[in-house]
Each structure stands twice: as structure tokens, then as C-alpha cells.
């Protein structure tokens, strides 16, 4: 034989799966939610997403080329995913410079400082979002009222209050402290449960429409981009935890507590804190699942490959932790919303979970 042939260890064939294909699969899964967002927020949604994606890609390119002096590999799609996820976590009425700062923090601090793709301990998009939430609390919690393409694009600082509103979770948080009930708050705001599902509510770009996010989940499950373990354990634990609080804390059920003589600590806590003997008001589990960033977080943020555990058992522990922390922040904390913090906290536990939670071995 005259020419050289390749000699390499087995296996000699490959599935053809690649990082690019997986990332573009995630991008496709996000498109329904983006479409709903454009439908309700108009140009604002397009503008925030574009600015976020382009600046994430640009920062990744610049950092790889000039700081790390490696070959830039922005074509793998991971910067696009980070950019889109960051945009999904922002209000459509955010000024340009804030989005760019968010992208810089996401890619620069969240991802590249740790060595780039595969090495970051925390979800980069959430690092960016939480940075912005702490730095620009007012701008980050004012959401444009959905008017389709009539929704003003608020690039400047003017007219902030005129055409913005709070999220359903925000309203509940304020309303319940003010001794209203969940029903009365929603009634005053003119919101029905169907609005949560179809997206006709205030909120970040990507979190408003439950059905679009669920389509994305179905797509990713069918294409085997992710497994069910993380999203279902997040949603399941939120449902169960809020369900328990709802059953035992809801006004109409308070007699159960008296009758059974149950002495649940949080009720006393509320009593002391507010100084009133108010019945504890608690939104129902469906409300908690459909509002805020829970579906977005459970489907797209918590399932981030790099920052979530490797084994199915570990993923369920991770997801349950996110669910419980989310509810704890939402119900007992100062913020109306807790998904971002919950995911970041559990990201921190991921190495520990990977170290101690082993897969089911053959023969065990």
C-alpha cells in the first residue's frame, strides 16, 4: 500500500451531534416565545433582543481575540443563546446602554472570566440580569404595557411611568401586604388566568406567554436537547410547595388550621410582622406556575448544560432546590420574583451535587 491511512482508537463513527446543532436547537425552541413577545411588545421586543444578541456576540469575539488571544469561536451559537436569554429576562422598555451593560456582564464576567464555554459556574444570562436588577432596580421592574406595535420603544428616560405597569407577581406582593385578596388584586387590574397563558400581561420579554414556552419545552424534549428532569422537578416542586401553602394558608381554609390545631410558623411570623390579625393570603399553585419567570427559568435557564448537574438524580435535586427557593423568595422574601436568584443559588451547588450524586450503576 502506497498511501497513508488513518489509525485511531475506536469508536470509528460519530453521531454527528455538535455543539452548534444543540445551540441552534435551543434558539429554535425560543422562537415561539420571541414571536409572542413581538406580538405584545412590538418593536421594543425586537430591539432589546437584537441589541442583546449582537452585543453578547461582539463582547465574546473581542474578549477571545484581544484579551484571551484565542481563536474566536462565536459561531458555536452559545453567545447567541446567552444574548437571547438575557433579552428574555429584560423589560421591552429598557434603554440601550443598560442592555449593553447587561451583555458585558453576562459574557465578560459571567462566562469569559471562568474560561469561556463549558467552564462558567453560573448561568451567564442570569448573572447579567441580576446585575442589572440590583443596579437599575426601577428600570428593571417597569414593564411596558402591552400594546403590540403601538407599544412605545423607551430608549430615553422619559415617560417612564406613563405607559408602564407592574407584573402580576408584583401586584400580588403589594396587594397582599395591603390586606387585599389575590382575587381582588387581579380583578382591579383586569387580569384573567387565560392572560397568563397567552401572554397578555406585563413582564420581561420571554416570560409572558406560558403556551409559547411550553411549545419550546416540547420541541427540546422531542429533539432530545434536554431531558424532563430539570423542568419537571422545578415546576413540580413549585406546584407542591405553593399548593401546601395555599391549602393551609388560604383565607377560606383557615378554619382547617383552627380545627386541626395546626400551628404553622409562617402564620405567626406574618402576624408579628404586620401587627395585624389578618388571614394569610396565598395565590394558588397555577398562578405561581404561570406568572413571573418560572416557566422561562425552568425550561430555558435552569436547563443550561454547563451550570446544571450531570446525572438525572442530581438534576432532580437541583430542580427541586430551585422550586423551593423560588417559592420561599416569592412568598416570604422582599422581591416579588425569585427564579433568577434560585437558579443562581442552585448553580452554586452544582459541583457539589456532581461530586456526591452518582448515576444508577449497572448492577445496583
Amino acid at each position, binding site marked *: 500500500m502506497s498511501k497513508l491511512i488513518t489509525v485511531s*482508537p475506536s*469508536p*470509528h463513527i460519530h453521531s454527528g451531534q455538535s455543539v452548534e446543532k444543540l445551540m441552534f436547537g435551543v434558539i429554535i425552541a425560543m422562537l415561539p416565545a420571541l414571536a409572542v413577545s413581538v406580538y405584545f411588545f412590538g418593536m421594543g421586543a425586537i430591539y432589546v433582543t437584537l441589541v442583546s444578541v449582537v452585543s453578547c456576540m461582539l463582547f465574546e469575539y473581542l474578549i477571545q481575540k484581544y484579551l484571551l488571544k484565542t481563536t474566536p469561536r462565536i459561531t458555536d451559537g452559545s453567545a447567541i443563546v446567552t444574548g437571547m436569554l438575557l433579552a428574555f429576562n429584560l423589560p421591552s422598555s429598557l434603554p440601550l446602554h443598560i442592555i449593553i451593560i447587561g451583555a458585558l456582564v453576562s459574557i465578560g464576567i459571567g462566562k469569559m472570566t471562568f474560561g469561556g464555554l463549558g467552564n462558567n459556574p453560573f448561568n451567564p444570562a442570569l448573572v447579567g440580569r441580576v446585575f442589572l436588577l440590583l443596579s437599575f432596580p426601577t428600570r428593571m421592574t417597569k414593564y411596558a404595557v402591552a400594546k403590540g406595535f403601538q407599544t412605545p420603544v423607551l430608549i430615553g428616560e422619559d415617560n417612564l411611568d406613563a405607559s408602564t405597569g407592574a407584573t402580576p407577581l408584583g401586584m400580588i406582593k403589594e396587594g397582599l401586604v395591603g390586606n387585599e385578596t389575590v382575587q381582588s388584586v387581579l380583578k382591579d387590574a383586569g387580569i384573567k388566568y387565560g392572560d397568563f397563558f397567552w401572554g397578555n400581561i406585563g413582564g420581561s420579554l420571554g416570560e409572558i406567554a406560558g403556551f409559547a414556552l411550553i411549545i419550546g419545552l416540547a420541541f427540546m424534549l422531542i429533539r432530545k436537547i434536554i431531558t424532563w428532569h430539570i423542568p419537571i422537578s422545578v415546576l413540580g416542586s413549585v406546584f407542591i410547595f405553593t399548593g401546601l401553602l395555599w391549602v393551609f394558608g388560604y383565607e377560606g381554609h383557615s378554619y382547617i388550621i383552627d380545627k386541626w390545631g395546626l400551628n404553622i410558623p409562617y402564620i405567626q411570623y406574618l402576624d408579628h410582622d404586620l401587627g395585624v390579625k389578618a388571614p394569610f393570603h396565598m395565590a394558588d399553585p397555577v398562578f405561581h406556575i404561570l406568572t413571573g419567570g418560572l416557566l422561562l427559568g425552568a425550561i430555558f435557564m435552569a436547563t443550561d448544560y454547563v451550570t446544571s448537574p450531570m*446525572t438525572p438524580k442530581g438534576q432532580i435535586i437541583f430542580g427541586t432546590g430551585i422550586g423551593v427557593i423560588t417559592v420561599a423568595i416569592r412568598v416570604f422574601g422582599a422581591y416579588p420574583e425569585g427564579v433568577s436568584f434560585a437558579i443562581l443559588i442552585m448553580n452554586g451547588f452544582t459541583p457539589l451535587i456532581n461530586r456526591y450524586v452518582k448515576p444508577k450503576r*449497572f448492577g445496583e
Partner: protein
Amino acid sequence: MLKTFTLGGVHPPENKISATSKIVEMHTPKNVVVPLVQHLGAPAKSIVAKGDIVKTGQLIAQSSGFVSANIHSPVSGKVLKIDKALNSSGYKSDAIFITVEGDEWVDNIDRTDKLINEIKFSKQEIISKIADAGIVGLGGATFPSHVKTTLPKGKKADYLIINGVECEPYLTADHLLMLEKTEELFVGTELLMKALDVSKAIIGIENNKSDAIKKMQEVSKKFNSISVQPLKVKYPQGGEKQLIEAITKRKVPSGGLPIDIGAVVFNVGSVYAIYEAVQKNKPLIDRIVTVTGKTLKSPSNFKVKIGTMIGELIDMAGGLPEDTGKIINGGPMMGKSVASTEIPIVKGSSGILIMPENESKRKETEPCIRCSKCVGVCPMGLEPYLLSALGEKSLFDRLESDKVMDCIECGSCSYVCPSGRPLLDYIRFGKTNVGKIIRSRK
């Protein structure tokens, strides 16, 4: 009902392009090279010298321990030399070179095609005939068969499982054997049942060989205690542990042997060799080899003498294509790529696969994105990403506690990795070193 194993597994394209090519007996080559190591265990000891005249089927190298195997001359002729020869691992090892002269056979070998149903031998006679004939596991592991049939004291086998899975893509040698030597396989199975004292034998065949399943099921009606179990197609179902679990739901414990849970597994190729050895007095001197590849002119299944050069088989199948980039001894998932066509067929060679240039290079390695797909496909429930990283850093203690020795080297992790990481390479490196450490403790 179709059965399969529970943990992990992948579905590589089957590419069984030689499945319709009947077994063709290949002509006897002019020279053969018979390595002294064709089995797991101690090398056989040559009992011939340069210039000796040997007959086909004559013992030329003797088993040198309990775990070792006899080797017989596949041809008649003259011993040219005993020298080092290249093997498929890329190393040189001792081999007997024989120049073919005439066609003399050892007297008692029955060379006819006549089926011999009747079993006249005792359990002990069957085992010693298997040992004499130098039968080893023909699925690729090449573990000496007489060792498997000699059960350790206090162990009892409940099931004899016959492996007709052939889960490697491309390969069809076992498939064709089941189609063409169906009854012989059942007689061989009965011989093994007698040797092992088992009352139940199950033949596992993957569902992509429906003609073989049909034919085997038909013949199985004549044999009360042997049944055929169709299996869902999933790689690596032909792995011993996976097959036992798929069929019996019993799981071989970590570090254990199939007999620990009452199972013994034989590949159909070995069963046919055992039939020939016991009923026809024919030692293991030839085997069925698939020669295949998308670019090969005529993918075939040959009955080949041990010691024939790979190159001669490729020539028989239409010659080496112009754009050949890789020659693999075995299947694409577990086979070894070789650097030369001057490598002899040995007892464990199940196929020769030719890959074109554009399929020969690995994809570029990207960073691990921790997608956990390798964990999901591992049929042993291991964490390939972790074992690979530990191997890369030579952290052998942790490799051992994370069960690296359980790895069956099926390659599912490397196959599925979206970043194209050489997971199995590093795991093998770790496994080799941990194995050495464990052996040095004894």
C-alpha cells in the same frame, strides 16, 4: 415481545450492507501466519519447528495454562519460520509462518456437510473436546470456551444464553451463520447445555435480523428447551452483561462474572465452532468474516482460514478502494483500525471494514459543555465525562472509586459527544493504569 437492556445505549446507523451476501468459502491462501496469541490469557506454546510438515487440523501450538487455548494448523504444508508478525493492535508478536503445500487433513476430521444430531458424548468428553479444539469466544473477546464451560465449584448455571445479537453496525457474519447453519447451531447449543448442566437455553437476536429470527424460531420448535428471544435494536446489546439483563433481567454485579448470577453466554460463532469440534472433530481453523464498507465493490461474508492476510480478503471483495482512509479489524464501534493489510485473520476477527477518507478523520475537539449525554448513553451507568477528565489528569484513585473498571469500552460516550471529545481514549488510559495498580496489590 421485544426485550432490551435498561441503562443507556445508542442507535448508530446499522449499515448491514452485506446482509444478503451468502457465505462464500475463500480459497486457501499460499501462505498463512498463525499468531500464538489469539485468545485471552497465556500465549500458546509452539510445538513445531522450522521445516516441519503439518497437516490441516494438526496441533501446532499448545495451551500453556488453564486460561489459554490450543492452536491448530489451518492448512497443510511446511513451517517456514517462527517469527514476530504484526497484529491488529499494531504490535509484533510470535507467530508460526506456514507455506501451503498440498491438502492433507488430519484423519478423523469429518469434512462433509452432513448434520449430526445425535449427542454421544458425556459432559466431560464435550468439555475436553472443546478444549482440544482450541475454541475461544468468537464474538471478539476470545475467552477460551473450555474455561467457561468448567463452572467454578459451588456455582450453578440456570441459563445458557446464545448471543446472536451482532449489534455492531456493518457486521453480518453471525447473521449469515444463523441463516445458513441453523440446525447446527441448535445441536451446538444442546452440547453446551449438556456440558453446563442447564435445562434452559435462550438465543437472543436483534429485531433487524427478522429472517434469522424467523428461521431460528422455526427450527426451535424441534428443540423443547431452546427458545429464541427477539430483541429491540440497541447498541451495545451484544455486550455480555447487557444481553443477560435484556433476556433475564438479572444483572452481573460490578467486578463479577455472569456465572455469579447463574448465566453463561456464548456467541453463535463459538456455538458453531463447538458443534464442529465435538460432532465433526474439527478444531477451530476457520471462521466467518464479514468484509464490508460503503465504498467496497462487493461486500461479502467469507469462510476464511485463520492466518489469511486481511489484504487477500479485501482483494476477494473487489480490492481496496482508491479513497480508503481507514481499515478496521472488527466493527466501527469497537474494532481496531490497522496500519497495514499484512495482518492475519485470527480467531477473534469478525469483520474487516473499509472506511472512505471522508469518514476516517475524527471531528475537531471542542470544550466539554457538560450536556451529560455521555452519562445518559453509558450502558454501565458510569460518568464518562468525569472518567475521561480524571484519566487526562492521571487521578487513578478517583478513577477506581468512580468504577472505571466497569467500563466495557463500547464507545457510546465518544459516539454521542457533541464536542467530539476523545472520552473513551482517556478512559482506556485510566483503565489500563488502574488495572495495573489493582494487579500489583495482589
